[in-house]
């Protein structure tokens, strides 16, 4: 399977990870080799098979909707480099 420069640009945009020009050739080679291996799936006719998203069905258990205070906001926000008065700070997004 061929990966084009345009594919690479799309993947980079969607995943929010920069791909520099120096590594793009070797990256294309890696991705093509992985996708060629993956294409073996095409040998199988799966038209009448249902997709299985999860190995064990019926495991989505619900719990009582009771408020808990396991982790405090302040404690969580200590992990962020930039915060103020309970808000997370990012570069300005509106003019």
């Amino acid at each position, binding site marked *: 399977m061929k990966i084009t420069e345009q*594919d690479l640009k799309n993947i980079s945009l969607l995943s929010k*990870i920069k791909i520099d020009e120096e590594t793009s050739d070797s990256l294309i080679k890696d991705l093509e080799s992985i996708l060629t291996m*993956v294409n073996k799936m095409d040998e199988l006719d799966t038209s009448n098979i249902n997709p299985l998203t999860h190995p064990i069905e019926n495991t989505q258990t619900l719990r009582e909707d009771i408020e808990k205070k396991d982790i405090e906001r302040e404690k969580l926000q200590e992990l962020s480099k930039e915060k103020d008065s309970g808000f997370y700070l990012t570069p300005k997004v509106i003019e």
Partner: protein
Amino acid sequence: MSELINLSLTDQILGLSDKSFSSKEITGAYLNEIKKKKSLNCFISVFEEESEEKALIADKNIAKNKARPLEGIPIAHKDIFCIKNKKTTCGSKMLSNFISPYSSEVFSKLDTAGAITIGKTNMDEFAMGSSNETSFYGNVLNPINEKLSPGGSSGGSAAAVRANLCSFATATDTGGSIRQPASFCGVTGIKPTYGRVSRWGMIAFASSLDQAGIIAKNAKDAAIALKYMSGFDQKDSTSLNEEVKDLQKEVDADQEHIIGIPKELIEKIKNDQVRDSFNNAISILEKDGAKIEEINLPHIEYSLPAYYVIAPAECSANLARYDGIRFGHRSESVSSLEDLYVNSRTEGFGREVKNRIFIGTFCLSAGYYDAFYNKALKIRNLIKGDFDEAFKKVSSIAMPTCSNSSFELGSINDPVEMYEQDIYTIPANLAGLPALSIPSGTSDEMPIGLQLIGNYLEEGRILNLANKFQKLTNFHEFK
């Protein structure tokens, strides 16, 4: 005191309870050994003072006859499990400064059972790798031959157990990350049924495949450790609300076994030593009374391609949370919000993690979703069906853990060649089945693993079979 670290968990529990030695002595002995073998790079963090303090408390509990089941036993956690107020890096630059505000259920359960966390083990970045070479903290060395890989992603845990740096270690397995390193280091590793052990506080890679387990010296030790780690957890919505069986009892029980052998797959094994070791192991078990049945797993060869769509797809979604804002690495060179996202992620993730995010993003993107992701999920269903059919007539399935013994560090550069390391271990993850690896021979003086796969929630049965094998052989013994 160095003989204390060679003892099995079973003997350590016994020795502590009859006061042949103290937790202070055994903890001190492990801490010394960790210092002596620092160059193996097994640990990302070591908690020396805290372990010593906890050992004193454990000794007091034992003296007062108030010992908990794992009281005073020094263990290690893979650095993928959050521990409150401790650095939890997942082997990544992205989390190199992450101090967890809460503890994983795996840690809490073993801590409540009295185990002492002596440190956190090195691993492939975000558990993505089969050689431990993707860790931001450098690769781990295989204690048997330091030029070779310990396997991955739980290479630090497997090497730490093999090098006698802890009594047992926790680990995780998404496509073979417990069993392959256990095989490479000549130790015992088990991945239980999906949902048997809570994923709460275990950093996510591919949520429908990730499962926590144990790496230990032998099957009996693994059974004891797993027993205290398992159980329903309300905080994990995929946790199984099923009774936890007494694995400690079951591992030694008198059980009959019918072992399924996927003959076609075995015949295709290229490495003679791996094939011979497998056949030898099966004949040992057969002579001991196990029945052997040929089985077919017709879709198993499609496991690798299906896995390398599903795992990266789930990885790309899970790792979207690392945005540089709330926690994790935040880039300094930023002038817009887009820069913040892109630069933080580009600087924070290593090459292999990026590769997997790219593959996952591609497979989930418009126009490719059906051809890749949906197709892979359908194949997953076929593979699960193969196992369901096989387990109608057998109680466990045997195959090698890996198609080779350990390889030289730096020798595999092609990603697909590296992914093929997990060719025999991936099927159990896709189906959510319990599976373990035990040493069953050697190839070029390095261990080879035998893999046993069980039916849902039948960890006890494969541990029982593994224990039988270990009573009949000495491949698992080391000093």
